[in-house]
């Protein structure tokens, strides 16, 4: 059993949107659709101010509300990988999942008439490649790994990473590092 997960280190995100467009291309989305969205936060007062960009996408929750609410079973957990996937053939485009996702990370694709979210580029994973958003991230703000067998940078940063908004009680798999990183002095 694998448990694939994305680890996002917001302290390294520059908000360049490279991941968003790479994802759009990989998944052949329309120009105005995407599986990733960004939130920007600013804190402090001039000149002691900090900003933080946070990319959000499907958190691949263990208790996924999008799965529970789906009337056709299109939205389902993949037993092999732990990912939350959408069967495009079964989706009727009712958009209940879009409304149910507390992270606002399920997107209605106008041109296809269905709702979908990040699938961690499963087709790339199957050929041993990383998700498109991870492989293009300029600053290493996005890491991919298997929570059952963490390796490399993913493993190194894992202890600091936490799910976003655990109070939503959806048991998200995606993990985030939100505090600014301190360099070894």
């Amino acid at each position, binding site marked *: 059993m694998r448990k694939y997960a994305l680890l996002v280190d917001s*302290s*390294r*995100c*520059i*908000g*360049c*949107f*490279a991941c*968003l*467009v*790479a994802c*759009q*291309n990989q998944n*052949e989305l*329309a*120009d*105005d*659709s*995407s599986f990733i*969205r*960004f*939130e*920007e*936060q*600013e*804190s*402090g*007062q*001039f*000149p002691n*101010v900090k*900003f*933080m960009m946070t990319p*959000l996408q499907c958190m691949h929750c263990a208790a996924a509300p999008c799965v529970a609410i789906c009337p056709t079973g299109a939205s389902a957990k993949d037993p092999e990988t732990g990912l939350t996937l959408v069967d495009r053939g079964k989706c009727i485009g009712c958009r209940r999942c879009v409304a149910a996702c*507390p*992270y*606002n990370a399920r*997107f*209605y694709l*106008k*041109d*296809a008439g269905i709702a979908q979210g990040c699938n961690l580029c499963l087709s790339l994973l199957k050929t041993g490649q990383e998700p*498109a958003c991870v*492989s*293009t*991230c*300029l*600053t*290493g703000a996005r890491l991919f790994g298997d929570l059952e067998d963490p390796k490399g940078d993913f493993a190194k940063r894992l202890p600091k990473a*936490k799910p*976003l*908004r655990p109070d*939503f009680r959806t048991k998200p798999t995606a993990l*985030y590092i*939100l*505090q600014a*990183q301190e*360099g*070894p*002095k």
Partner: protein
Amino acid sequence: MLEKSFSRRMSLKTSAATVAVAGSMETFSFGEWLKKAEAAEVTTVASICGGCSAWCGMWIHVKNGRIWKVSGQKDNPTSKGKLCARGHASAFWAYTKDRITSPMRRTKDNWFEPVSWEQAYAEIGVKLKKVLAEHGPQTVFFSQNAKPTSRFYMQRFMDAVGSPTIQSHHSICSTGRDVACKWTTGSMATADIGKTKYILFLGRSYADGISPSATGNLAETRDKGTTVVIVDPRQNSSCAFATEWVPIRPGTDLALLLAIASVLIKEDLCDKAFIEEYTVGFDELQKAVRDCSPEWASELTTIPPETIYSIARGLGKNRPASCIEQGYKAPNGANYANGTQTFRALACVNALLGNYGRDGGMKFPLSPKLGTLDSKVYPAPPKPKVPRCDGAGIKGEYPLCQTSQGIPHMMPKKAMEGKAKAGFIYSFNPVRNAPDPEFMVKGYRALDLMVVCDIQWSETAMAADYVLPECSFAEREDLPTGISGSAPGVGMRCQAINLVHSDTKPFEDIVAGMAQAMGFEKYFSFSRDQVSEAILAPTGVTLEELRSKGTIMLKAAPQALSFDTPSKKVEIYCQAFADNGFSPIPVWEAPIAKADRNSFVLIHGKQGIMSHTATANIPKLLSIAKTYNMDRIWINGKRARQLGIRDGDLVEISSPLATRRIRVKVTERVHPEAAFLPAGYGNTSPLLKSAFGFGVNPNEFTPHRVEPIGGHAMMMEVVITVRKVAD
């Protein structure tokens, strides 16, 4: 806690309801294409990204003859396997709806009509011959954003015309830096960010004007514990990796540098051995900065004196593995009246640190030795004998300006004065990207002949007599290009897809067509492959090998430290500056623009998703810009409150030249005296239908000017007022 702010219902919505599906405007719908695509064979073709001038090596992944996606070449030193958003989007230029699809000719009622290539070449030939007969070759110019293909073919064309006035876009980009560099250190040294211990950035932001490897290096150097200090009126995106953001009053970086020099000298933090062996003019600098204390500079820059002391000591104590990064456009490129001397001062401080050629300091890049066509087999036209039209390199005009760059944004003025009569412009949009677009158009329209070659209807194309459509970069092969850096290399762009619009052509064919109409065909009796092979010959790399790999890095022996200046040393005191009436030592000069309590200096710059305005018309990128309201002007929170302006309000911004309306981003991330307007928006060409009407062009507020030393455009020397207006 920060995480709590990720609310259940976010204010930002990613799915705009109004933009059409771009994939559907081609021969089949997006849905149909998607079905076909899922079962398709994918081929990958080596290319070079055309999204900006960083020139990342990229793979274009083609499915069913259509671009599917792109990825960065791992061996390419700029992309290192990664691409930015522009990179992922720019290959799709091929499919944008605002391409120029056939040659066009201006009509009597100032619009455009299609014309055949043969007709266009013939008419251009007749008009150019008339200009040459009546006014001479010195009235003809060529302005470009230089690429290997255009550089080679247009050099021959212009030589055949007899005009030396070939210009690159730099007078609105980096001419201040480049001219100062030429006369101070000879060529451009770049910060060795991988090994530095203390690095100071002035305005330059790797995370906004992105090169993927530079951005990655910045992140990595911060991980290693390097002190990264970023001086900028705006807290730019690179500040994610800054130890400290130091906001500065716009255009006063020169004062900061002089104060740093003064502390380094007074506190004995300089590299005396380096200064002795490799520099001229230390004593003069010492005298000149005697009174440039941090306290003095603090008044000018608004930076606290203790911060200036701390920066100077940080640089001094970590030398030679410390440096001031070389910058690009701001504040030492083309933005302020004192830009050239600002770079002179920057180079002088690096010399005081003795960091040239040293690990962690400033390194001179290694370039490959490339070949060219054998002139015995393929005769080249004679070199022009007339003087340049733009005065670059000419005593009494702009003697210090490099003739490899020239002063393109001055040509409209020359046209109005009757000194320029015919202009060719390639892949360059000075009407939109130089100050005062109205002035630019008026000048270009005063020409007897203006020919613009581009892929889309730029504002400059809209000012042309003839518009010749090039195919986009994914649709063509270009000549190989040299790669310079810590190791030399070669790269090339190959044709990934067939022509989307059959009546567009690669640039070399367009030049050959014009050459034939002029009777210059004897200078173009070769194929592009022959030129490519000649370029590659000295490297030992074959054309086929390069086509398949995209990037090939070469071995090179490290070079001994040398400076290509008249004295063969770092010219802290610059005799050429003295000889031409400019201060031979950098001394304080105030910028022209200064804000008061009712106004702001208008600063502008890149965002990671946009290059100038060329990319605003790519639907993928424009959609992001619209979703995230990225066209807003940044105003400091305290100033905004004083003006009664709230985040998201609509305001009117005015200079004597223009009044425009835009929404406000109220932020603590900008200096109270500066207003930051993203530089990528405000297209006014009605035929750029995607981008038209979105955002405001900062250049509309700024007067046309030419800086006296190198001739740059002083693009941020303008003050605006801001006032809230009703929605």
